[in-house]
C-alpha cells in the first residue's frame, strides 16, 4: 500500500477552493446557517425552560 503523502500546510484552503457547496455561494455561509440554527435551538430551549418552570 502506498504511504500517504504528508499534508501540506494550506490543504484545508485548497480543498475549500476545489469544492463549492451545492447551495449558497460559500461554505462559510452554510456553516453560519448551521450555527445560527443551533443558536435558535438553544434560545428555544431557554424559552421552553422558562415557560414551564
Amino acid at each position, binding site marked *: *500500500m502506498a*504511504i*500517504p*503523502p*504528508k*499534508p501540506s*500546510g494550506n*490543504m*484545508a484552503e*485548497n*480543498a*475549500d477552493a*476545489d*469544492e*463549492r*457547496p*451545492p447551495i449558497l455561494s460559500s*461554505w462559510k455561509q*452554510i*456553516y453560519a446557517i*448551521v*450555527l445560527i*440554527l*443551533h443558536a435558535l*435551538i*438553544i434560545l428555544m*430551549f*431557554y424559552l*421552553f*425552560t422558562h*415557560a*414551564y*418552570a
Partner: protein
Amino acid sequence: MDFIDWTVMLGTLTAIVAYGVWKTRSVTSVKSYLMGDKDLPWWTIGLSVMATQASAITFLSTPGQAYQSGMDFAQFYIGLPIAMVILCIFVLPIYYRLNIYTAYEYLEGRFDLRTRTLTAILFLIQRGLAAGITIYAPAIILSSILGWPLNNTIFFIGLIVIFYTVFGGTKAVSVTQKQQMIVILTGMFIAAMVVIFKLPPDISFNDALSIAGKSGKLDVISFDFDPSSRYNFWSGILGGTFLFLSYFGTDQSQVQRYLSGKSLSESRLGLLFNGIFKVPMQFLVLFVGILVFVFFQFQQPPIHFNDANLQRFEGTVYEDSLAQLQTQYDLLFEERRSEMQEMLMGIREENPNTIETSKEQLNVLMQREEMLRGQVDSLILHQAPEAQVEDRDYVFITFIMNYLPHGLIGLLLAVIFSAAMSSTSSELNALATTTVIDIYRRSVVKNKSDHHYLNASKGFTLLWGALALFFATTASLFENLIQAVNIIGSLFYGPILGIFAVAFAMKSIGGRAVFLAAGLGEAVVILLFILDKQEVINLEYLWLNPIGCLAVMLFAWLLQPLVGKKVVA
C-alpha cells in the same frame, strides 16, 4: 407480544437486512467493501453517522433518564454542532485530500509508521471490547423484559449484524443504517403521539407540560456556571465540543461513515446534517420520557420497573414483605394522584398558593415513594445479592410492553433492535478496516491481490463479530465488566486524542517526539489510575480523557527540541 408484534418486528428487521444485502450484492473489491465505492449521498452519510452514535441503550436509557431526572441531559449535545463545523473546516479536507481508508493512515503521513500502528492498536483494544458491550447491554434488558434467555437475545442481535456486515461491508452498514434510522425516528415519534393520546381525557397537552414543568422535569437549559452539576450550558459547550471533536474526528467507526461519501461536499453536508438534527432528536427522545412521567402520574407505575427482579420473590420468605410494601405503595399513589389533580386545578386557575402548597405536598409524597422503592431494592438485594436494582433503563420498555397497542409493540422493539444493530455494525466494520488497512496490509502481508485483501476484510469482520459475541456472552461472568470496559476506554482515549491533536495543531512536532510522548502520556494515565485505585488520590476515571490528551501534547512539545528533527509544515 402476540403474532402481530412478531410479524411487525421480524418483518421490519428482515426487510432492512434484505435491502442491505440486495444493495451490496455487487461488492467485489476492497475499496468497494471498505469505502462503499465512495458514492454515498449526504443524507445517507448523515443518517449513518447518527445511527452509529445512537445505540440501543440510547433509546432504552434516555427516556428513563428524563423520567427520573428531567431534560437537562439535552445540554450534553450542545457542543456537537460546533464540533461538526470545526471538523468540516479543518479535518475533512485533509482526510479527503489524502484519500485514506482510516484516520490512522493520516498519522503515518504526518508522523511515521509506528505512531500509526500504535494508535490503530489502541483503537482496536478499546473498540473491540466496546463492541461486545454494545450487544450485551441492551440484550440483558430485552431478555429480562421479553423472557428470552440472555444468550439467545445476544445471538439474535449478533448473528444478524455479523451476517450483513460480513456480506456487504461498509456499504451494507450505511444503507441499513439509513433504513434503521428511519424506523427509529418514526417509532419514537409514534411513541410520543401514543403517550399523549394515552393521557386521561381531561389532561391536555399543555396540562401535561405544566405538570412536568412544575415537577422540575423541563429544565432543558441552565446558564449557571456550576462545576459540580453534571449538565449545564457551559459543560456542554466546552466539554461537549472537546468530546465530540475526538469522537467524530478520530474514532474510525465514525470516520469511516463520512469517508465513504461521494465527495467532500457530500461528507460535509452529512456531518452538518448530524449537527442540525442530533440535538432535536435527543430532545425528542428525552421528551418521550417526560410524557411517560406525566402518564405515570395518573396511571400507577410498578413499584420496581424490572419485573424479573420482583419475580425472584415468588415462593420466598420475602414475598409477604413485598406485598406489604406494595399495599403502602398503592395507597401512596392514590394520595399522590389526587394531590396532582389539586396542583392541576391550581395551574388552570393560575393560583400560585395552591400550586406551591401542592408542590410541597407532592415533594413529601415523592420522598415517601422513593423510600418505599428503596426498601424494595434492599429486599431484592437480600434475596439476590448479585441483582442490579437500578431500574431506570426499564422504564420505557415497561411502558412499551404494558401500554402500547399490539403492532406498535413490535415496531418499538424493532426500533431498539435496529439501534443495537446499527451501532454494532459500524463497530465491526471499523475494527475490520483498521485491522486490514493499518496492520495486516501495511505491516504483515504486503503486496497481495485485491481479492486476497477482500477476503481478509470479510474474515476479520467475522473474527471481530465472533469476539464481540464471545465478550457479550461472557460479560455476565465478570462483575462490573461494563464499568471495566469504560475505564479501559478512558485509559486509551485521551492519548489517542492527544496524538491527533498534535498532528493537527502542532505542526512543528515530529514522529519521534509524538511517539515517545504517547508512551509517556499513557504511563501518566496508568499511574494516575493506579494511584486512584490505591486511594492515594481521588480522581474519577472520566478525567483521564483530558489528562491523557493534554499530557501527550505537553510531552511532545517538551521532547521535540531534544529528540526530534524540525518538521517543515
